[in-house]
């Protein structure tokens, strides 16, 4: 049995005996992963909380009333009729995300569309909810368009509106079946980050327990000691990922996609974060400093790599910057394996990057450790 394996088995045994530490390394990452997974995807389907709006009815025409009824019937909206002043106050206080005022002459303008009539709506939005303004505008226009269709149907029965067909683009048979399949790669990344961050303090613990000196006086090199920590962390990462997989399959209906590619993606991600852990664990001389540095580095990686905010919501420069984050490449590899239907050649780039980062972390850790020991 190689010394690295002996060291790793010892660390895993110590982890098993330390129930509190076991919680932070095995259980907490699962909680973390499920929390972020549910935020991004919504466990149990794509249902979202309806947007709360106030409706100010300033036009009493039939067309205007029909429009308001259409808005109220939308499952994406929770509309409440209010007077203008009350609606304004409700939005100002944050009780409603927005108000929609149906301006006087709305119905008449709707009836004169072909003669240049323009039905007038006013949208008052909470400054803190501007991200939803576009979404709300889309819903209002959709309802308006439906009202126009109703109107034209009476004038020209054969007239039909445009048809939009939505087609998910993915390999044959590899479409995501549940929203959690889409967020699952981020969840796995969080689990691995949590596991690696928890393991980072194990080297400092050797120093505080005095065992570092005994190890260093034995026939074992610094690189072997660090590799032992890395192997133990790698095994723990794999166990965490498997636990998360089992939960996701059993409770959330996630399918495993291509199991061989999934194994490759998991192995690469675990190697990457174990390698980074080996560098982080020598960045301080106390448990507090290493734990602080670990979480700072790992959180930053998650932030810029799309682990907190999806990459599509980021500005262009941030998307470019995300290329330096292993979280991004981990997500790409896992998505490729689970539902994008990547071939081995497509998996090669993200996996190679993950392994390269892991090995660089190990190398940097050995160098820093040698310097710290002088």
């Amino acid at each position, binding site marked *: 049995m190689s010394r690295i394996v*002996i060291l790793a088995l010892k660390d895993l*045994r110590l982890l098993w005996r330390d129930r509190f530490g076991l919680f932070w390394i095995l259980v907490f990452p699962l909680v973390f992963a499920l929390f972020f997974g549910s935020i991004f995807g919504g466990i149990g389907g794509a249902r979202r909380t309806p947007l709360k709006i106030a409706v100010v009815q300033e036009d009493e025409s039939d067309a205007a009333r029909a429009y308001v009824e259409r808005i109220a019937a939308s499952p994406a909206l929770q509309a409440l009729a209010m007077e203008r002043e009350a609606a304004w106050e409700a939005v100002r206080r944050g009780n409603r995300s927005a108000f929609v005022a149906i301006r006087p002459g709305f119905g008449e303008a709707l009836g004169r569309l072909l003669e240049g009539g323009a039905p007038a709506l006013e949208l008052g939005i909470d400054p803190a909810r501007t991200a939803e303004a576009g979404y709300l505008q889309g819903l209002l226009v959709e309802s308006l368009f439906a009202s126009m269709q109703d109107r034209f149907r009476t004038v020209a029965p054969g007239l039909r509106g445009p048809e939009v067909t939505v087609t998910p683009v993915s390999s044959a048979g590899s479409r995501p079946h549940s929203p959690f399949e889409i967020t699952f790669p981020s969840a796995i990344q969080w689990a691995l980050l949590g596991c690696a961050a928890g393991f980072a303090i194990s080297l400092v613990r050797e120093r505080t327990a005095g065992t570092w000196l005994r190890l260093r*006086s034995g026939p074992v090199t610094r690189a072997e000691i660090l590799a032992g920590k890395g192997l133990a962390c790698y095994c723990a990462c794999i166990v965490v990922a498997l636990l998360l997989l089992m939960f996701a399959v059993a409770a959330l209906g996630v399918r495993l996609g291509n199991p061989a590619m999934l194994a490759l993606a998991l192995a690469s991600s675990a190697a990457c974060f174990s390698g980074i852990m080996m560098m982080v664990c020598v960045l301080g001389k106390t448990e507090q400093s290493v734990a602080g540095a670990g979480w700072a580095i790992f959180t930053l990686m998650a932030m810029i790599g799309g682990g907190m905010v999806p990459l599509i919501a980021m500005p262009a420069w941030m998307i470019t910057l995300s290329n330096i984050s292993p979280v991004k490449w981990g997500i790409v590899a896992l998505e490729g394996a689970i539902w994008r239907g990547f071939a081995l050649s497509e998996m090669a780039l993200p996996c190679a990057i993950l392994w390269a980062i892991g090995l660089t972390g190990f190398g940097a850790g050995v160098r820093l450790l040698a310097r710290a020991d002088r």
Partner: protein
Amino acid sequence: MIRAESLRKSYDGLTAVDGASFEIRPGETFGLLGPNGAGKTTTIHMLVGALQPDAGSIEVAGAPDPSRAEVRRAIGLAPQALSLYAELTGEENLLFFARLHGLRGARLRDRVDWALGFAGLREKARQRVGAYSGGMQRRLNLACALVHEPRVLFLDEPTAGVDPQSRIHLFANIEALAREGRTILYTTHYMEEAERLCDRVAIMDRGRILDCDTVPALLARHGGRAVIEAELAELPTEGAVLPGRIDGKILRVETERPLEDLAQVASAGAKLSSLHLHRPDLETVFLALTGRSLRDG
């Protein structure tokens, strides 16, 4: 077996070891005696290859580089701070360190069993070390250094913080190891331990070796003469000749032949109510060499 030549080591501008030189012969128990902060532990760390000296040379078990694998297999270290995994049992600690040194199969089991017996921990072998008493942990700390049967032992203050009973147990263990012919470097700031266990002693202070020899030779060089202190029950009659000087009722005699001087006191008819003989010891030697007590640090 061990040779240190002009070793130097500084931390952040503070000199911990300042040109220390000494040589330890095979089978010898060699003591490094000095107060806390004298540089003993730093010297050991350099000798086992855990620290790189700033200057000087080292030879351990015939090799100039203690970080070489064959040297590390030949040495055992019992650090001053307990270096055990508290969440593992005593047996698991021994198994781990023995495996790291390459022990396998029957030899592994035999050596671990021997080490548990040596430390008197067979009955507690499957208890977690965190539940051991301080003395039991100290004994296990020493056993972990011995489990791979090293030829050279570095024992850094092995009795620090130990109760008297465990200290006696440890002394017996170390004496047994010395009888087996192992080479031992023993650091302590207790002169009694150095006098009892060590064939030769180096007096260390502020990073420097002040002198190094057998205990009798050190005493002869730096210890001065023995002192007899007696309280006289009655002052001697006039004309009686007593050695030394009398201060009130206290007779004080500095002498190289205490028995002869005591006989002279008796023949002079002096009646004593108490008698103390102060022989020079390593404390006296340290005081003579540094002007300070060992306990002053």
